[in-house]
């Protein structure tokens, strides 16, 4: 009795056979994998873009710090605008773990580009007195010119916030603006200050200058303070009483970084609608793959019969068609990953964000592709394997 060696199909050969099956039908392969590619690309881009914008927000948050609190005077019980005590800056600076305090005080004055402009056209620009430490405390940056010094703070000089400078049409230091009925020289212009947007709309005058030239009473409207991050909450709880021992409830304390942190959190939660669209594209892609495989099995009955005659087991035939299906959807998946990543890079670069395509998105995409490929290929593969060799060979 001659020994029979069982049929064997090596993994490498399975891959070759699967690839060969796809190579013969290139157009169809391209079309069938397109749906998968679009689906994966959409999902990867959605996740990538939201992760990148989140990474950007988190990076900015990191730069700006989350340890700044602002104190606003708020309103009196009678509904009037309250004022903070003159010594509040000094009082807050005495709180342990507070390392920087600054203040702004609202002024009645308005600022204009020239002395010919009607008084009511303020352009929404507020005039505020600012303490020297303001810039550092809010982590602001001077775009052009300079910030106040002890000396310039008492002269008729002004530093413009980003928006204020644009509304006034004054962007260079050295220019003169009409402020509170006299000429002030522009000392500098600031970049936008994400943690204190009010400053963007303000024309800032030195604290001493405001007192001397604009009859400022020296009461801060808003305090900005930074403390060691661990003690932010502790500081927060003592601030109202420190600032306004008589009426602590009039005082509003807030943490501007909270808004940014909330935005970062929502940026990370991606648009479900777009993800859903991606999922639909994937589903359609999966149906496309299944359809292609079913057609392929019908067309290749003779090939299947021949393979059975050559010694392929049912399992080998099943494996071959499953491999083809997996390669087909894998092809779409890889193309989709590449496309989605490119879209993410394009978006991130054009917005100045760091590019971030999370590994889990790539892994998830590939996993989805494997699942789709197997599910789509299973039925055709089983059908191919069930085909009787004689019937398959007899097909004209």
């Amino acid at each position, binding site marked *: 009795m001659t020994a029979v060696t069982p049929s064997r199909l*090596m993994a490498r050969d399975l891959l070759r056979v699967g690839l060969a099956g796809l190579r013969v039908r290139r157009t169809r392969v391209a079309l069938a994998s397109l749906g998968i590619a679009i689906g994966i690309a959409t999902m990867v881009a959605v996740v990538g873009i939201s992760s990148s914008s989140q990474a950007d927000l988190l990076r900015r948050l990191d730069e700006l710090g989350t340890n700044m609190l602002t104190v606003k005077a708020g309103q009196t019980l009678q509904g009037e605008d309250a004022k903070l005590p003159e010594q509040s800056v000094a009082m807050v600076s005495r709180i342990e773990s507070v390392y920087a305090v600054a203040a702004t005080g609202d002024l009645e004055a308005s600022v204009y580009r020239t002395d010919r402009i009607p008084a009511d056209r303020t352009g929404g620009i507020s005039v505020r007195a600012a303490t020297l430490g303001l810039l550092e405390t809010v982590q602001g940056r001077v775009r052009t010119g300079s910030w106040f010094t002890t000396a310039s703070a008492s002269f008729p000089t002004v530093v413009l916030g980003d928006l204020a400078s644009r509304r006034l049409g004054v962007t260079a230091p050295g220019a003169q603006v009409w402020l509170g009925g006299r000429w002030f020289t522009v000392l500098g212009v600031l970049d936008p200050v994400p943690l204190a947007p009010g400053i963007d709309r303000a024309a800032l005058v030195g604290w001493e200058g405001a007192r001397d030239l604009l009859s400022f009473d020296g009461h801060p409207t808003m305090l900005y303070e930074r403390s060691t991050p661990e003690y932010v909450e502790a500081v927060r709880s003592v601030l109202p009483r420190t600032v306004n021992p008589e009426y602590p409830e009039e005082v509003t304390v807030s943490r501007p970084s909270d808004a940014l942190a909330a935005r970062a959190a929502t940026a990370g939660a991606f648009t479900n609608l777009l993800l859903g669209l991606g999922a639909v594209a994937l589903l359609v892609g999966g149906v496309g793959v299944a359809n292609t495989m079913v057609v392929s099995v019908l067309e290749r009955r003779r*090939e299947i019969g021949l393979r059975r*005659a050559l010694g392929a087991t049912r399992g080998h035939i099943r494996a071959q068609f499953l491999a083809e299906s997996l390669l087909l959807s894998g092809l779409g998946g890889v193309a989709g990953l590449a496309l989605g990543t490119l879209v993410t890079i394009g978006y991130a670069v054009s917005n100045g964000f760091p590019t971030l395509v999370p590994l889990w998105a790539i892994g998830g995409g590939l996993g989805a592709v494997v699942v789709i490929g197997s599910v789509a290929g299973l039925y055709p593969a089983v059908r191919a394997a069930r085909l009787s*060799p004689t019937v398959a060979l007899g097909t004209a």
Partner: protein
Amino acid sequence: MTPIVRLENVVKTYDGGVAALRGVDLDIFPGELLAIVGPSGSGKSTLLHMMGVLDRPTSGRVIIAGHDIGRLPDRELSGLRASLLGFVFQQFHLAAGVSALDNVADGMLYSGVPLSERRRRAALALERVGLGERLTHRPHELSGGEQQRVAVARAVVREPAILYADEPTGNLDSASGAEVLGVLRTLHADGTTIAIITHEHEVAAAAGRQVSVRDGRIVSDVRSPL
């Protein structure tokens, strides 16, 4: 001598109720060149399917090289085909766009032999069928006779115990048919056991043994000294 193929009272009735084989007994011994002849629909192809374990009989026994196939699962039937049986069909069943060499190498795809070794043996097999110069040609670049010779090379590349050919010249003009027949005779002369199903007298006459089938039965079995 033990037969390579032994059929014992093999009956094959198709689902529609067609009795394609009605009790066939047949032994094929090593080294034989056997022609199976008979009118269309007499059951020749069905007989080949039984001998090639491509299908199971409704009743009776099929024994290939001592293995009673009645008890074997699909996996082992496939193993039997991969290691002992070679097939040539009327249609060549070559993979389009694939070189002659790789078409032949695929004859051993399920034998667990690495690709380089399969290609080496494929080149030898193509040499044997006179296509040593055509290794890189793809099917559409070959004549019908050449394509069928590639198919023969694919069937013999793994040195089967028996080669089955179902109307191997049926799709060919007489010149190409003679070419293929010549190749089969050479293989037989080298020791390959061959069973050919044919309608053609020249082919049948070339065989040392003629088995006639009619209505699902063997009506004559003649050994002619060559």
